[in-house]
């Protein structure tokens, strides 16, 4: 167990009930996710609720999460966007674009589909041509694992 584990490994650890993994994921993604949620919610309290609910949803469904890319941020942003009660004016990614600039092209494409176009994470993954992968028992980092997707093929 390490704070340096990649997001896929952390998801697998959460699926096994490891709450330190959830804490690590929170530390890693909460700040950009909060910025992202700020554009999706009408009030600060609503933004906070979106962020918290996204992490709790991740914890609750960790066993079923299959990442398309190495980062959980698109999944978390998709969760926030899916829970947002209504459309808000302006670019919904405006506060998080600086964070996304440091992510992969695939991550950015996923975020655009999920947050801007209103797709679910699975829909975005399918539209972008990612193929579901069989979940592994152990975490693997690197390019070979990059295309991990959804167990249900959604």
């Amino acid at each position, binding site marked *: 167990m390490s704070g340096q584990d990649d997001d896929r490994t952390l998801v697998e650890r959460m699926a096994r009930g490891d709450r330190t993994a959830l804490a690590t994921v929170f530390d890693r993604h909460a700040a950009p996710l909060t910025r992202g949620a700020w554009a999706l919610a009408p009030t600060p309290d609503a933004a*906070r*609720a979106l962020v918290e609910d996204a992490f709790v949803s991740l914890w609750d469904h960790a*066993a079923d999460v299959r990442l398309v890319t190495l980062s959980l941020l698109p999944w978390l942003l998709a969760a926030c966007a*899916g829970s947002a009660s209504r459309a808000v004016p302006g670019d919904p990614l405006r506060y998080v674009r600086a964070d996304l600039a440091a992510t992969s092209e695939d991550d950015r494409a996923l975020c655009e589909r999920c947050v801007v176009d209103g797709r679910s*994470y699975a829909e975005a993954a399918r539209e972008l041509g990612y193929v579901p992968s069989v979940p592994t028992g152990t975490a693997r980092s690197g390019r070979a694992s990059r295309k991990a997707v959804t167990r249900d093929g959604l």
Partner: protein
Amino acid sequence: MDSEPPQGDDLRRLLVTMKQDVLARATPRRGPRRRRSGIAIGVVTALLLGAAGGSVALGLIPGQEDRASAPAATATTEPMPTRSPDGAPVVDSPSPTPTPTPTPTATRPPYASDDPRTWTISGTEVGPVALGGAVTEETDDLTAAFADDSNCPNPNVSWWTADGRTPIIVLGQNGVVTGIAVGDFSADQPGPTTAEGLGVGSTLAELRAAYPDLTPVTGADGQVASGTPAWTIVRQGHHITFSMRPDTTVTGSVWVSDEAQEPYEFCG
């Protein structure tokens, strides 16, 4: 919304409180129950944690805006909204009846598995160790910061120590964590604290100021123990009990459990 996202200290404070909420809402997963085989090694460590009825520790919990995570209709890989429509907070109704907890104001460092000073004591957990979780899985998370002291002959108790750190004692029954103690009444050392920053070394006056619902723990005779009096609060349906060092008003141990009374001995 019109306002810009928080930055700097404002963001940091927000993240701290959100993290506490998220971890409080992340219910432990119940693994298969296993009784620890527990080979007693070494000498029996008869540790007296309190006198005249036992020690009690009070604990507290983040206790703010506890929201229930609504169950998802189906388990899919999709990000799923979990908030109930009205986002209504769920308030546990333990005994004694808790009163609203003051909003934590202290800024805590980010959680680190190898630094117990960053761990939060809540009604459901101490850092990575959660009530109701499998002992082996929960205590496994302590190894980044502590070593298991195998001298305790009680197979249901594991005693975790490290130089310069407040020890952690985990009590289990049928392989499930039923109690977590922070501190063993020895000298103050850095360790986990509540969201309000209180723990081993905190004075009774500090506890009273932070927790209006602080309640004395009484023995069978209805009296507070004279040697190591203890006070408790209830958070998320569980007790957090602060036990004083003998004949002092300084916390020597913090106990998280369904039982308000911390065991008089763990290994005896």
